[in-house]
């Protein structure tokens, strides 16, 4: 009865607005970045929305990895709360978006199998998805081989994708084809769900999730080109022909060897000169990615302006939350390894002028 519009989104809008106000502010980010060490960082985080989760554990057992896990748990709970109150038409896309973490877990489990890691080691890097995920992660890690781990996925949406890629894994013994296949399939499905939405919702979802897809697609193309030196045809096959701003022609231009900076600046004219970043790719590419992600954040913030009863609100919030978690993870790692602020600050996906 109340599927979309004001009726459908009134409750979820209020809920997300309330949660939105708890995203870490720029003032808080400054304090967190300036924390003397890991212990001080945790002390500061205890005063944020992550406090109750970090306080579930004694300080003695709160290792960097464990704290990240607790922080991720907060996101998982937030997602569950949001998705429950979302109208049914929007739920598949929201759930699919959140399942990006399941793809992450799947890749982590496959890496663990490849590296012959124990379940105890592997589970530390898994995102706590709870009941949303039915991935047999432990059985996979303990299966002993990538082929057996993939077999355990029979009946899940990942099985077919991986089974097509298994032939290449068998001959190359590299997880690269499996991981690329998973990523491409995931974003193709997101795109299908997105296109199935009613028009007002579709436009909003395109702005938020589509922008994120743009960044991924571009960064894939650039990395394949610079790091892996892949050929034009491989690069085209390993990327996607759609997005919010990025079009197939842009990807093909990159694949054909056109100037990367030129393509990026045509798509994002407001970016500063990025040619210098490309001179030293190891340092420069992560910085470029952060700059692109800032554009995604801007798009997400825009979703909260104007008519508010659409899917863009919960989606934008989840994208922002995902980036907050990403930044916190990087920060926890930096603080626990005692890196100086200037070494990591540029790599945190934070908005430059957050009010």
């Amino acid at each position, binding site marked *: *009865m*109340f599927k979309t519009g004001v009726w459908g989104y*009134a*409750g979820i*809008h*209020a*809920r997300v*607005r*309330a949660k939105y*106000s*708890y995203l870490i502010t720029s003032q808080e980010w400054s304090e967190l970045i300036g924390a003397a060490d890991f212990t001080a960082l945790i002390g500061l985080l205890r005063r944020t929305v992550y406090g109750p989760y970090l306080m579930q554990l004694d300080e003695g057992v709160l290792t960097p990895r464990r704290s990240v896990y607790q922080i991720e748990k907060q996101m998982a709970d937030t997602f569950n709360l949001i998705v429950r*109150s979302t109208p049914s038409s929007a739920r598949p896309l929201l759930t699919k978006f959140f399942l990006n973490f399941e793809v992450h877990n799947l890749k982590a489990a496959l890496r663990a199998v490849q590296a012959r890691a124990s379940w105890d080691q592997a589970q530390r890097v898994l995102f706590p998805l709870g009941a949303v995920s039915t991935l047999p992660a432990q059985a996979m890690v303990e299966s002993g081989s990538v082929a057996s781990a993939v077999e355990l996925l029979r009946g899940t949406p990942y099985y*077919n*994708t991986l089974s*097509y*890629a298994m*032939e*290449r894994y068998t001959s190359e013994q590299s997880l690269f*084809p499996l991981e690329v*296949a998973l990523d*491409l*399939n995931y974003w*193709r499905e997101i795109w299908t769900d997105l296109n199935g939405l009613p028009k007002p919702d579709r436009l909003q979802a395109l702005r938020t999730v589509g922008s994120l897809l743009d960044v991924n697609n571009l960064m894939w193309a650039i990395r394949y080109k610079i790091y892996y030196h*892949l*050929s*034009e*045809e*491989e690069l*085209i*096959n*390993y990327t996607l*022909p759609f997005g919010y701003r990025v079009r*197939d022609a842009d990807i*093909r231009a990159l694949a054909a060897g056109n100037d990367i900076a030129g393509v990026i600046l045509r798509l994002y004219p407001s970016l500063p000169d990025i040619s210098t970043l490309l001179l030293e790719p190891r340092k420069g590419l992560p910085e470029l990615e952060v700059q692109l992600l800032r554009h995604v954040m801007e798009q997400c913030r825009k979703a909260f302006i104007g008519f508010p009863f659409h899917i863009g609100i919960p989606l934008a919030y989840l994208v922002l939350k995902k980036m907050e978690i990403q930044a916190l993870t990087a920060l926890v790692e930096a603080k626990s390894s005692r890196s100086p602020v200037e070494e990591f600050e540029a790599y945190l996906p934070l908005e430059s002028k957050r009010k």
Partner: protein
Amino acid sequence: MFYPQEMSQVQLIIPARDLMAVTRELADQGVFHQIDGSNLALEPVKIPRPHKPWPEVAAAYASLERRILGILQTLTIEQGLTPAPEGTGIVELDQVQPLVEQIDQQVKRVREQISEEQKQLDELQGLYHQLEPLADKDLDLETLRATGYIYSILGVIPHANVDRLRTSLERIPFVFETLHQDEETAIVWLSGLKRDREILDRAARSAYLNPLVLPEAYSGTSTAVVRALGKKMEDIRQQMAEQGKVLTGIREERGDQLQTLLGQVRSSRILTEAMSRFGRFRYTYLISGWVPANRVTEFEQGLKGVSKNILVESLAIQRAHLHENIPVVLHNAGLFRPFQTLVTTYGQPRYEEMDPTFLMAVSFPLLFGAMFGDIGHGLLLALLGVLLGSRSVRALRSMANFGWIIAYCGVFSVIFGFLYGNIFGFENILKPLFIRPMNSILESMILAIGVGIVLLSIGYLVFIVNALMAREWGKLLFDHHGVAGLVLYWSLIGLAVEVATKHAPVPLVILGIAALISGLLLTFSELLDRLVEGHRPLVDGDLPSYAAASFFELFEVLIGLLSNSISYVRVAAFAIAHAGLSAVVFILATLISPSHGFGYWAVVVLGNLFIIGFEGMIVGIQSMRLEFYELFSKFFKGGGMRYEPLTLQPKIQE
């Protein structure tokens, strides 16, 4: 009956010499739900050689048990119910391990051969399935192996990658043909100039085009290859059948022996696992757990019979202010027990909350009967239910509980059949004792909503009683399903009655004030709950965003109240649909045979069977939905701990 059985927490201190006898007694009594007390030891205990720590011994038995189960599974032998060995109940590991090893080796050899043949068969089958669609194309596959200027790839590609593959090859000349396609993949032939071979290979590989590689032994046209593959697969299947006969021989020879071994090893594993959870001191063991309060005396006497120096302490647990999860024993009368399965499907009740089995046992068949009122259909359902419930059909024994639920639903269908005057869809044989839903649609719907209001109000009352028993005053007064929620619900119903009939049972002003106050209380329910319970801070975050979220939550509550009540209209809708479906059957029967001959009665019988199967299932699902979603969500939290007593015959008791 309304609450789970009262439990007592028990702690036992036993001398080390009585360990085996006490553990066996605990398992034989089958009432003791054990708690892990292994961390209670106050001092490190030296294990005298050659004894190993209990967890290690238990792990060895568990591993042996898995091995026996593996053999039984390979030989397709049932586990059986072999009694535990006499005495301590523990069989020496050295005594059984060599025997298991010997049988395992015997089975393993055959199993490995079968598995090797199976692998070969799977590979050929994969190839066969990929080439089979090309069998009628008579394609010369030799051209793939020997080409002049053309380079070709025959393979399978996921549909999703086809367009991208074409795009990636736009800069070179190529031919791309789809030979066959199914739901997700396509068999394709990609060819181009030999000088572009590397580009073609890279593009195919990156598009996950998996080439079909034919073993050298298979050559010629696709038709010939498919035929040769089929023959080879048949040969392998015959070899596997021979190996299967060998396994049958082993099964006949060793079946009983394996079942006995399983019984011995399993009881040893259960007892040693139990012992590994005891707290161990220098000369004594500490054992903790739960026992139903009414069994404590008998339990204590039994233990004293095997250990004179045992110390037993027990404490009955009240339901208020519980901070721990206590195992739950549900004790419903036999009549209601089948519905217990439905309740636990939704969730195991917690120790401190009301067990809704009784409520479900009354309301579920009532709702079902109201939606499926027909004397004939009800009688057939009741007979089917009794047949299943009586366990007289061996293959359907696992459905016994389900059978009794069907039987009760059938009985209520009969009762409502009399009320509606309906028998096998015929409405002209009996006079209805109450109404015909088809002729009184509005009345039926109002009645259905009335029933819904009564059931939902019961849901609210159960929540209130639960909160009262648990002394959760905040929840009792301000929760959406507590007193404030109930007052809001009833006052809104009062207002609706006034609008519809101008005859509200209570003055309009009182109803309005009650709705306003209860609405306000619900808006700030979280804050008030924390205030009453003494929890701080009263609000998470800032007050304005809390107020905004609370306001919209109230909005959701109001929509929920409306939709929950209206949801019960489906009871009337299905009662009407039942009569409608029956009418359709008679129309169809008359069309087939206007003279009411054989065709007419055949359609009537088949139609009635269809109604019982199809509509019966839908009505069952709808009744379940009304119970779980509309009613249980008002008061039932679930998440209780299952009562799993230590026993050598698991899964027998609840």
